[in-house]
């Protein structure tokens, strides 16, 4: 596989937030790639750096955050050194994003149509007005919305409709890669299901690459072909969805598999890991997972394991993959 075949190549990405108490490494040495038309998932607890990765890919970081190291190649071009103006040309055109909160993703003072049109005028200005209108209508059809609703304001939409509109907006400039950051979390289950299905169908139909981010591994399994598991700013394991579910080799993934967040039923069903995710201001030395790991040995406490390929396409960063001693 040559580099240019991938839509996205992330290599050794390091990103930190400058805080008053010291730097917080929210993304630490992360490497992965997304192939053409491929859907990958990123899973992890909240605060483990999933969203930080997404924002880094679009270079939408807050002012106190820096990308310190690494490459982000979109269709082969590294975007890390790009100045803001050139970056703006690539945003939405190459990568677009669907954000977490359906309720707040649309600007309340503009009509939905205007908000989609705005992006198109910026990136595909060669289209005529009719072409744009047609495009919007077809996008609305695609995401399951009535095109006649497009002149309404966001507050006239329900939560599910808004998220559909946001998805339509994300598709408006035919991006190569779409990042979906927990797009269904804020919605209720029935709507969640149908939107999830829609996202998957659209992704297949348009043969578009996608990164799906969620804390809910069940959702991830449904949409993605490969899954990356994140812990405390690091990518600890990445492999096909099959492998992650049935053959996890990182102890954290193993623990994750046995603790679906179930609120129903007795407490015994909830197998939780002992301890807390580490404080990223002062992460533990060595492997960041070692204080909570059942297989911990001396080396884990001293040296950070390399992120490497264990079997074909199955990457992990662990000294004792699969719990072996």
């Amino acid at each position, binding site marked *: 596989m040559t580099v240019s075949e991938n839509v996205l190549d992330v290599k050794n990405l390091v990103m930190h937030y400058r805080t008053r108490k010291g730097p917080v490494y929210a993304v630490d040495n992360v490497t992965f790639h997304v192939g053409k038309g491929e859907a990958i998932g990123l899973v992890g607890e909240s605060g483990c750096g999933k969203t930080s990765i997404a924002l880094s890919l679009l270079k939408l970081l807050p002012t106190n955050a820096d990308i310190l190291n690494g490459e982000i190649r979109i269709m082969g071009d590294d975007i890390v050194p790009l100045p803001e103006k050139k970056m703006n040309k690539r945003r939405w055109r190459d990568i677009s994003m669907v954000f977490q909160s359906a309720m*707040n993703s649309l600007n309340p003072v503009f009509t939905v149509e205007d908000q989609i049109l705005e992006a198109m005028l910026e990136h595909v200005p060669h289209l005529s007005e009719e072409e744009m209108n047609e495009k919007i209508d077809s996008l609305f059809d695609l995401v399951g919305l009535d095109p006649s609703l497009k002149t309404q304001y966001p507050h006239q939409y329900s939560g599910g409709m808004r998220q559909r509109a946001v998805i339509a907006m994300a598709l408006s400039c035919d991006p190569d890669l779409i990042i979906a950051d927990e797009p269904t979390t804020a919605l209720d289950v029935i709507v969640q299901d149908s939107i999830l299905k829609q996202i998957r169908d659209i992704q297949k139909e348009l043969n578009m690459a996608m990164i799906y981010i969620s804390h809910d591994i069940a959702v991830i399994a449904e949409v993605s072909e490969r899954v990356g598991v994140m812990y405390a700013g690091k990518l600890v394991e990445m492999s096909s969805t099959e492998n992650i579910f049935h053959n996890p080799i990182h102890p954290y993934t193993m623990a994750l598999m046995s603790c679906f967040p179930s*609120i129903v039923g007795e407490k015994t069903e909830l197998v939780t890991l002992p301890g807390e995710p580490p404080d990223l201001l002062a992460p533990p030395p060595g492997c960041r997972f070692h204080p909570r790991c059942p297989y911990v040995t001396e080396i884990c406490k001293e040296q950070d394991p390399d992120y490497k390929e264990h079997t074909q396409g199955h990457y992990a960063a662990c000294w004792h993959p699969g719990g072996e001693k």
Partner: protein
Amino acid sequence: MDPIPSNHLEKAYNYYRNGQLSRASQLLVELIKHDPGHEEAWYLLSYVLKDLDRQIYAVQRVLRINPLNQKASIRLRKLSVLREEEDAGETLSSETAEGSPPQVTRYTEWTRDQQITDHGFSHTQRLKFRAHNFWRRFKMNWNIFAQSRLAILGLILVFIFGLLTIAYPILRNTVWASSVYDPITGFDMKVFPHPVPPGSRHLLGTDTLGRDVLSRLLAATPHTFVIGLTAAVATAIVGTLLSMAAAYFQGNVDTAITNLADVFIMLPAPVMMVIIGTRFREISPFVLGLFYGVLTGAGGTTLVMRAQAIQIVSKPFMEAAQIAGGGGRHIIFKHLLPSLLPLAALQMMVAVTGAVVADGFISFFGITRTISNWGTIIYDAFIYAGISGTGVPWYSLVPAAMCFSLFALGFYLISRGLHRVASPELRRR
């Protein structure tokens, strides 16, 4: 949309009140299955569940559904404090409680906002725990407050003025002779002609009538504090009471209070104070502050706080509490009042600034002549400069004006810090 869920919520709440937690959780889970976006159900669930982690999870769900749910964010904060406390709590319990209920139960009891009496604890133990909890919460809020360096600067400014308040009586009784340093009748015979610029003898110089400027400034400080703080307390009390009444009774009472506040807001405070001032020439700063406080309290403060109070009351839990007949007093004092206090503190700080400027203004116009305050000093600087033709002495003018600015600035900066504490949306940053 569906009659069953709302009924369920009510029933669940009743079960919860009666302590039948498992039945309540059954109903709620059913509700949530039916409608996972049910904010109220998730919120109530966070009270019904026994395990702290799950409680936190439920509250987080509430916040996902509605990030602006203030009750939930307050509760989340509370719960995370408890979470942090788990270690501290262990030591506490091992020290004091022999054979106390198992820990999980204990936290569950505690987190129920002390609605169900925290049985099984001795009085001192409860107090200790409460104090501990209070201290934790205080530290947390303090950290948020201290994030803003300007807010700390404000605190320092107010502290310095506090020191100045004490300084004057001490200096008068020790080193300053009253013939020279009296703020109204003092005169330094050894210096001629007055006014003199700042020097070693008079740190800030003297004014046209030969009075030491520094001593006048210091003597005026307590007066200013009294005005400002009285106004602050009055505005907070009036504003809180009115807004709570509006939010609790709603309907006509709410309309009446809002419209009344609209009328009060039109009353021009300085004009009103001038009227009062002409009537009572020797009015005490306390009465003046009180007057200003009531005026703004019933006006702007009520309008601002009512908006917040209404929001809190319309929150699902309050509704649930009302449906179940939680009792008016209980709702007001256990839920509404605590949520309004930070905002009240914020309004207090704003009132200090307003009251002090208004007071200075009326003395600047020479209406309340007997009071010696910063406004009078500025007024004197102008008026006597006109009479004696010596020009405006900048060294009595500038310090007084600066005192105003710095005093007001100090309180205003504190209020900005409090604003962060009071609004959870800002805290994320």
